[in-house]
């Protein structure tokens, strides 16, 4: 039986998973994938990568707040 995203977000374990995932995404070795000469919209990949992951974290928690308030 699957649960809705809202129910998923209400589980502590889910947030622990997200925390671990975020920690992995924002640390070595995954972070090293974004270094180098590559550019995105003229900006170094690493800056864009960190910014995007950071924004995703913010957005995800924002959605949690909206959905649980609803």
């Amino acid at each position, binding site marked *: 039986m699957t649960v809705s995203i809202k129910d998923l977000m209400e589980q*502590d374990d889910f*947030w*622990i998973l*997200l*925390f671990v995932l*975020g*920690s992995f995404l*924002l*640390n*070595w*070795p995954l*972070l*090293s994938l974004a*270094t180098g000469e590559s550019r995105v919209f*003229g*900006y*170094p990949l*690493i*800056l864009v990568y*960190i*910014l995007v992951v*950071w*924004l995703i*974290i*913010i*957005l995800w*928690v*924002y959605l*949690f*707040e909206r959905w*649980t*308030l609803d």
Partner: protein
Amino acid sequence: MIAPHIALATMVLYLLLLFGIALYAYRQRQAGRSIVSNPYVYALSICLYATAWAFYGSVGKAASTGLSFLPIYLGPSLIMLLGWPLIRKMIRISKEYRLTTISDFISFRYGRSYAIGALVTIASLITITPYVALQLIAITDSLNIISGEYYPIGSMRLVVTILLGVFAIVFGARYLDPLERHEGLIAAVAFGSVVKLVAFLAAGIYIAYGIFGGYGVIVDEIATSPDYSHLLQPDYVSWFSLTLISLFAILFLPRQFHVMVVENSDENHLKKAMWLVPLYMLLINLFVPAVAWAGLLLDTPGSADMFMVSIPVDQGNDLLALLVFIGGVSAAAAMVLVSAVAVGTMMLNDLEMSHIIRRIGKGRDLPSLLLTMRWLNILLVLALGYLYSLLVEYHSLVDIGLISFLAVSQIAPAALGGMYWKKGSRHGAIAGLVSGFLIWGYTALIPSLVWSGLISERLLTEGLLGIGFLRPTSLFGLHLDMWTHAAFWSIFVNCLFYVLFSLIYRPSQEEMALSESVVDIYEARPELALSERRMIRVGTVDELETTLARYIGEEKAKREVDSNLAELGTTRERIDAKQLMILREVLEKRLTGTVGTSATRIIVEEEISVKPVVEVVRGTKAMYTLNPSRIYVIPEKAYEVFTDQITHGIEGLCIASSDPDEIRSRWQFTETPIIRLSHDRGRGEMYIAPTNLPLLFITIKSFVEKSTNSIILLDNLDDLIEENVSVVPPSEVLDFVYALESLARENRTRFVLKVRPEYVHEKLPLEINEVRQLIFLLGPLSCYLFKDFADAMIASLDESCRREAIRDIEVLMETDRLFEGIKCAGRSAEMSPEACDPDMGKSVVVKIEPHLSLSRWEFFMAIRSVAREIKKVDPKFDPKSVLGPLMAKYGLKLYELDLIPGTTYVIEEEKPQKSLELFSDLTRLGAVGLCISRYHPDKLIERYNFHPERVIWLTQSTAYEAKYRCVDPTNFPRLSSITSDFLTNTKEPLILLEGLGYLITQSNYESVLRFIQSQRDEISMRKAMLFIHLDPLALDTKELHRLKSEMEPLEL
């Protein structure tokens, strides 16, 4: 450049603006219109995390090491993902137990440990000092940059320190009670967060788009510059360690704990903060690389830490420079204010309070004294920061901050372990904290002191005592950047010692109880333990209020008690035992919020705790032998026996109404505590009012639990009972007596009761008489118990049946048919004054004379009679379901309702397990029994704790030991003689016969049947009870039927 006076005036005006905002918020709160209790303000207050370090230090770090400044802000953003499971739990625990500082939070979990509270406080003071210094340095240095070094730095810093100190006192320590949320302070902090963000973004946009052609232009130039391209390559090892320690910092820095946990007014505000805080961190760091790298590209003079203000000054944009300066002041001021308040409170609660309570407290105006101490602490924190800023040169702003972060990370294992691991013990926490801080000091603090020139560089280059392996920056040859190196060793050793010592030294009972309540904070709390519910109310509410008043003032204490009584729906006069326990818990938490957990523990312990001590041991052998877990009635020689025991290694407690000095001089003991039962407060002695049974019980319990081998002498328990039954409901006296008995039975203690012989309803043939079932032994307690039971049965009826049942019962009493053989002066309902009582018709009117008593069997006979009368009125009435809880409360067994004296019972089971357990239960509860069994006495004594003299072994063996009584299974005359003697000489005797099959096989069925029939007659005449175990499979149907016809079946 701005005129120095304008810069200074702007700063002062800004601080006054903060004052005004704080005052406005405070007044709004007083008017019931809080502007602070909303999630946006809450989230902005958490952004206090971004201090002058973020404003200036991050820019400096970005200029030197590139993106490596980012983890300091990624850590907090990541931890917000755990906001709901983790931070919410911290908030819930703190609110539940009124924990107002991080040191209280941790010390509470580990048994309200004073040592841990003190350790965390001292560590916080040490770590916060450089951090405060950093803020003061940032303010004064930025002021000098925009106004051109006009003012002496030392004087300027002093002015700033004083201004901030006054602000902190006015808005952070106005009242003693830290539970009052400081809305003024939080409003100022939240406003400051907005100001610094606006200033930072304005400066960033100006520098990136005003001076350069865009953010991308700066990044391009840096990426293509051979000198600076490395700034885009983070060092992953230090990246990880900085993420980790910043993650811990936002949770456990005193200021962060204060705003995030203590000042939280609604857990749901956390949901908003969980995304607003990371968004804020993102925005305030968005232009850090741009500003830092722009400074490098523009070759801006001065320290890179100050690029934020020096670039606008260098470019001639004074207004922006002023705005940035104010942003920096905002960032620094908020941190200093909240840190000073938080650490000042910690110092008071965890360092000073215990000394104040022990030495100064009694009789002084404590609330004023404590408030003054708090103010002084706040000023001390600021003063230390100021002195540090003058004495120590810094490597960089960031390095000062990282030293603090690393130090605060040492709290993490104990704090997080305490929240999730029940086995985490006080010893583990202390070992972890001490080892972690020592390693931190060696690997992080010492190198910074070497750089400042305060310590010789030799320690860094050659190691401790010249041992290369012990170099502070490369312990055991591990080469990492300094922060990673220090973080690794300190946190690793901390965690290792925490876990190891927790596994070696198990938590105490108190710690286990606290750990469960903390770890399982979301689970429903269980009912109070049965033994702790037996309290009464008289005098105790006033005493609780008096204790509380000593620390928060009389008016506040009275308001607190009255509001809590209103919440409980009761009054001082009507409060019952359970409500009193709840009130006590609430007020204890209140005290915790005021004076901290370890100090509360001291107050509570000093109020009610008596520590076991041992007298000087006499060389002679003890004259008397008292066994632990027993109660003795010693009418004449109680003190002599007590003195004999305490002078031979047993810890004693004496409770008496006589003068303690007289007792000591007469009986020659000096160390043993004596508690005087008196309504008058004495000087220098421990006293308890005789009507304060809850306090007396807690005191005895606390003593017993602290001791491993003790004796308690309770002089004049009879007077104590008589004084109380005239004042409180007798059921509460019953609770006290039963609780004492349970306490004696369950612990390794000996109770010695000195009572008048006529108060005891049993012969006391010896000097020292071991007794049981005090309720049936002392005075009219058994009659009060009967009344309770009768009232419970009556209360279960509906209105129409109740009056009729009461009338029938009272008729029984008047005609002496209720208490068999005992005269009871019952009054008729018409004649009794209670007839006019509005509560009339709800309970039985029983006049209890002091000499009345019921034995256990008489009690149950009376209960059965009442139940019979009630059943006539209400056939559906089931006494067992009504009386079950009450019986369990007083250790009575449900089957006792069915046991009728003069009856022979048969218990059918293959093995005699239930039969032996029944017999063991009844004798343990005070009945005198004789067990005739096929089992060897050793087995019965070991398994069921039978007394050797009460066992008759059925055996034909001649090689038996002389210490046991043995009977040949064919010798029925001998067997009859033994049982007859026993029945004649014992009051309310009971006999268990196990081994019927053996008797039959050794003799014959008919002889056994005749024996049973003769015993049955004798049992019936003596009003005794005989239990016979029978294995139904051992006999054929006819034999079984004939035997069973002589007996009543008993289902267990």
